[in-house]
C-alpha cells in the first residue's frame, strides 16, 4: 500500500496553513511530522483522513495491486487517533471500546485482545470520567488494536503517556510497520526513532 500526496494545500479560516506538501509513504514506512504549534500538523492528518477538504493538490491511497482506493475504501483502511479521545465520562472503558469496535466493524472479541495489548485490564470497569489524561490516551490508542487496518494516522500519540506506555506504543507501531503497515504521525518529540520526518513551518 502507498500513500501519495502531491502539492497539498489547506486553509483554516482565512489562513493558508500549508501548501505544496509532497510525500510518498509506502508499506512498512512511517512519516513523522514536526513543526511549531499551528504549523498544520493536525490539519494535514485530517486532510489525509478525508475529514477536511484540501484547497489544492492530490492525495491518493494505492493498494498493493496498484488500484487507487475510493474515499469509502480509504475510510475503511485507516485508523485516525486525534488528540480528542472520544471518551465519554458516562461510559465505562469496556463499553467505550465495544462501541468503537462496532464503529470499526470489528468483532466484540477483539475488545479483550485490545485491552490486553494496552494493559487496560485494571481500567476496564472504570467510567471514562475517572480516567487520567494518560489513561484516556491509552484507551484511545487501544482503538488501533481493535481492527487491523494498514494506515495509522496519529496526532501527538506520545502526549501524557508514561515511559512504559511509550515503549509499548513504540513496540506496537514497530510491529505494525514490520507487518507492512503505514504510519503518519504528528509529534513534538522524536517518535519511532524519527526514521523519516517532515517539518512543517508557518506560511506567510
Amino acid at each position, binding site marked *: 500500500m502507498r500513500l501519495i500526496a502531491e502539492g497539498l494545500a489547506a486553509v*483554516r479560516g482565512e489562513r493558508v496553513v500549508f501548501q505544496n506538501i509532497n510525500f510518498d509513504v509506502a508499506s512498512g514506512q512511517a512519516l513523522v511530522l514536526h513543526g511549531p504549534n499551528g504549523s498544520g500538523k493536525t490539519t494535514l492528518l*485530517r486532510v489525509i*483522513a*478525508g*475529514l*477536511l*477538504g484540501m484547497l489544492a493538490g492530490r492525495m491518493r491511497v494505492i493498494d498493493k495491486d496498484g488500484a487507487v482506493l475510493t474515499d*469509502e475504501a480509504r*475510510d*475503511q483502511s*485507516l485508523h*485516525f487517533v*486525534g488528540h*480528542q*479521545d*472520544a*471518551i*465519554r465520562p*458516562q*461510559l465505562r472503558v469496556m*463499553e467505550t471500546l*465495544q*462501541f*468503537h469496535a*462496532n*464503529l*470499526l*466493524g470489528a468483532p466484540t472479541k477483539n475488545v479483550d485482545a485490545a485491552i490486553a495489548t494496552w494493559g487496560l485490564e485494571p481500567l476496564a470497569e472504570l467510567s471514562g470520567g475517572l480516567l487520567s489524561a494518560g489513561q484516556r490516551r491509552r484507551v484511545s490508542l487501544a482503538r488501533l488494536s481493535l481492527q487491523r487496518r494498514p494506515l495509522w494516522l496519529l496526532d501527538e500519540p506520545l502526549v501524557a503517556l508514561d515511559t512504559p506506555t511509550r515503549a509499548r506504543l513504540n513496540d506496537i507501531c514497530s510491529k505494525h510497520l514490520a507487518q507492512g503497515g503505514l504510519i503518519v504521525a504528528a509529534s513534538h518529540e522524536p517518535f519511532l526513532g524519527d526514521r523519516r520526518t517532515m517539518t512543517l513551518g508557518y506560511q506567510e
Partner: protein
Amino acid sequence: MKTFRALVWRDILIGMRASGGAALAAAFFALIIVLAPLGLGPDAGTLRAAGPGLFWIAALLATLLGLERVLQPDAEDGTLDLLRLSPLPLELVALAKIAAHWLTSGFIISLLAPLLAPLLSLDTPAIPILAASLLLGTPGLSAIGTAAAALGTSVQRGGMVLAILVLPLNIPFLIFGASAVSAAQANEDPTQALIFLTAASLIALVVGPIAAAAALRLNED
C-alpha cells in the same frame, strides 16, 4: 445495522446516566404538570380546558432539554470524526441519534403522561388519546430537534439558538396534539387531528435525518 444498534444503545446509556438526560426530561415534564394547578387554581373546569395544551407545551419544552447533548459532545470529543469515518451513512447516524433521543425523552414522557392526567382533571376517555398523541408526535419533535442540533454543532454554546430554531417548527405538533386531546374530551372524533399529527411526525422523520446529515457535512471544518 449492528453499527446503528450500537450507536443507539450507546446514546441511550449516556442519556440514562448523564445528569441532564432522561431523568431530567421526565422530571421537568412532571414538574410543569404538577405546578400548573398551583398557578391556575383548583377549578376542575379550568384545568380540564387547559390540560391538553399544557401537556403538549410541557412535552415540547421537555424534549428540547436533551438536544444539546445529542451531537454537541460528539463534535467536541472527536466521536463525530469517527462516525464520519465509519461505513454508516450520516443520514443513519442522524436517525440513530433521533431514536436514542426519543427513547430517552418523548417515549418516557408518553408513558408518564397518563399517570399525571388526573392532576389536570383530564376526562378518562381522553387519557389514551393523550398517550397516543404523545407517542405519535414526539418522534417528530426529536427529528426536528436533531436536525437543529446538527446545525448547532458549528455554533459554540448553541443552546439558546437551538430553542429559537426548534420551537417554531414544533408549532404544528402543538396544535394537532392538543386538539386531538381536546376533541376526545369534547366527545368528538380525534382521528383527524391524530392523522395530521402522524403526518407531521413522518415528514419530520424523513426530512430530519437528511437535513441533519447535510448540516454535518456542511460544517466539515
